[in-house]
């Protein structure tokens, strides 16, 4: 996972995104942001700390163990179900936490991108251009 080629790809994507956000065209800038957020998402996954080979979806389930089932029962876990997951098996899984973080980041970037796109649409409506150099009514 923590492969140098992958790091290089991420870095190049960062470079491309950076180049794009420095363009004059608002759509290009937003595309640049899109590339940057792709890059950062892959970056987060790529720093996942263990070199597992398996998808972090576990075998086994509650149903396999005999349970009494009780809401908010702390002891449930340790006493009855811990044999379900053997100690040490986790080594083979990839880091699930980074994936969860990226999920959150992706969703957030979707929301932000949607907002900024519609903002660009409104800017085009107000300014009659997509050239961000024209966005200079506020200065000084």
């Amino acid at each position: 996972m923590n492969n140098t080629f992958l790091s290089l790809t991420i870095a190049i994507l960062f470079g491309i995104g950076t180049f794009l956000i420095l363009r004059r065209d608002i759509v290009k800038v937003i595309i640049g942001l899109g590339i940057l957020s792709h890059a950062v998402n892959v970056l987060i996954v790529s720093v996942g700390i263990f070199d597992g080979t398996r998808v972090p979806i576990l075998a086994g389930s509650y149903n396999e163990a005999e349970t009494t089932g009780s809401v908010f029962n702390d002891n449930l876990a340790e006493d009855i179900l811990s044999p379900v997951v053997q100690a040490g098996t986790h080594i083979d899984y990839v880091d699930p936490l980074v994936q969860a973080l990226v999920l959150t980041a992706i969703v957030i970037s979707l929301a932000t991108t949607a907002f900024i796109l519609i903002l660009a649409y409104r800017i085009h409506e107000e300014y009659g251009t997509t050239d961000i150099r024209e966005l200079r009514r506020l200065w000084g």
Partner: protein
Amino acid sequence: MIILTDHLPILLIAIPILSSMVMVFLKGSPVLQKNLNVFIYFCLVILAIMLLQKVWTGGIMVYEVGEWGKYGIILVADLLSSGMVLLTLGISFLSLIYSLDYIEERSLNSTYHSLFNLLVAGLNGSFLTGDIFNLFVFFEVLLLSSCGLVIANEKVGVTRSSDKMEATFKYLILSMLGSIVMLIAVASLYATVGTLNMADIAVKVSASSAAGTLPWHVFAIALLFIVVFGNKAAIFPLHYWLPDVHPTAPSPISAMLSGVLIKIGVYGMLRVFFLIFRDVLPMFQPIIILMALATIVVGAVSAVGQTDIKRMLAYSSIGQIGYIFLGIGMGSALTIAASLVYLVNHAVAKSMLFLTSGGIIHHAGTRDMYRMGGMIKSAPLMASMFLVGAMSISGIPPMGGFIAKFVLFKAGIQEEYYIPVAIAILFALFTLFYMMRAWMKMFWGTVNDSERQGNATPHAPALLMAIPIIILALIIVVLGLYAEPLLALAQATAEQIVDPQPYIDAVLTRNVR
């Protein structure tokens, strides 16, 4: 038996979120919506006071969301965060009341309350969280909600909607870049220490720093965090978005932005640098001080050049943030306490000034000070209120701002930062100059009726707009005449900040199920 006070931190975040959705359902009945939201904020202020009181008497309060210990997300209420929450809610409460008469009806009923509540949730969430990634999430909440609020319509629209779009675009795009930097920093940090819990990270960074195994890129990460929080707080050279956004926002939102929102960067700086990177802090102090000084200079000089009242106030915010960062950069308990005092005073005074400027703009129908004049006779309340705020920002006694400047300069000189303090004092003069010039331009001289824009007719500010301003003015005066509680609180807070061991202990010595 549910003990409400055990859940205070989460209530302060979850209630705004839940209530923002209730506001959507109440779209059809605006009166109920308004009253309910004001009531909710009143309760939230009470809860925030309770939280601060509890933390003050009972020590740092740790709340495990989901009871997962450090594996889940932890909310930590220490003096800093609970103080910031109280400040946030106080100013939000007043801004909300002000908004009811200030924001256009449709905007107000349809989305304003929801966005406002989510903004507050974002702020409180950021202040209270003990988890670095969660901090990112709540940063995004408050970023987007503030963008949404900036473009809310005002009743007396003197701000072109194109200006709002432009400002929001600049704000959003720079903030998005900041978010990307933050994600890089957080991910790299996680890859290095294997945890997201700030106290846990702090322990691990300290331990490996002591053992000499701290990799160099942790410094790079720390520098990235300077950019992240500097961007939020608008310190030079990351300040560019602020002078565009703060003036174009509706005044109550300007008050929130300048009063509270940019403080989130200050908060983050204090939290991350004095908790996580405290062992390597001295290397970053010169950088922070240099940036702070540059911020002071840029803010002060640019403010002098403005003719737009709100833009001037925005630049002033930049300059004032510089002072706050100066205190942080100097890095001792004294200077941090001074920074905190400064922060509170700036928050109160600047919110008050923005709210007042809203009233002034309502009255004058323009934001250009050079086209106003002689309003002392027609708007005496605004004149005196603005004067109080201006005096406080300029550090003129007996306003709170004086105490803030005094303690900051005193602490700085005590730490033997003579040159930075000298620069700070020099540029404090600029503040006085532009503030008083603004006041004179608006309230002295002669009325310039012919310049007035068509859609605004002069009228006294509505009651709901006057009340928050007066309350804030009273707070400013009280903070000037009797600042002891604030000073003591700031002192205690600063001591907590520079010695994070109790914080770490409180977070990590919990039973994890």
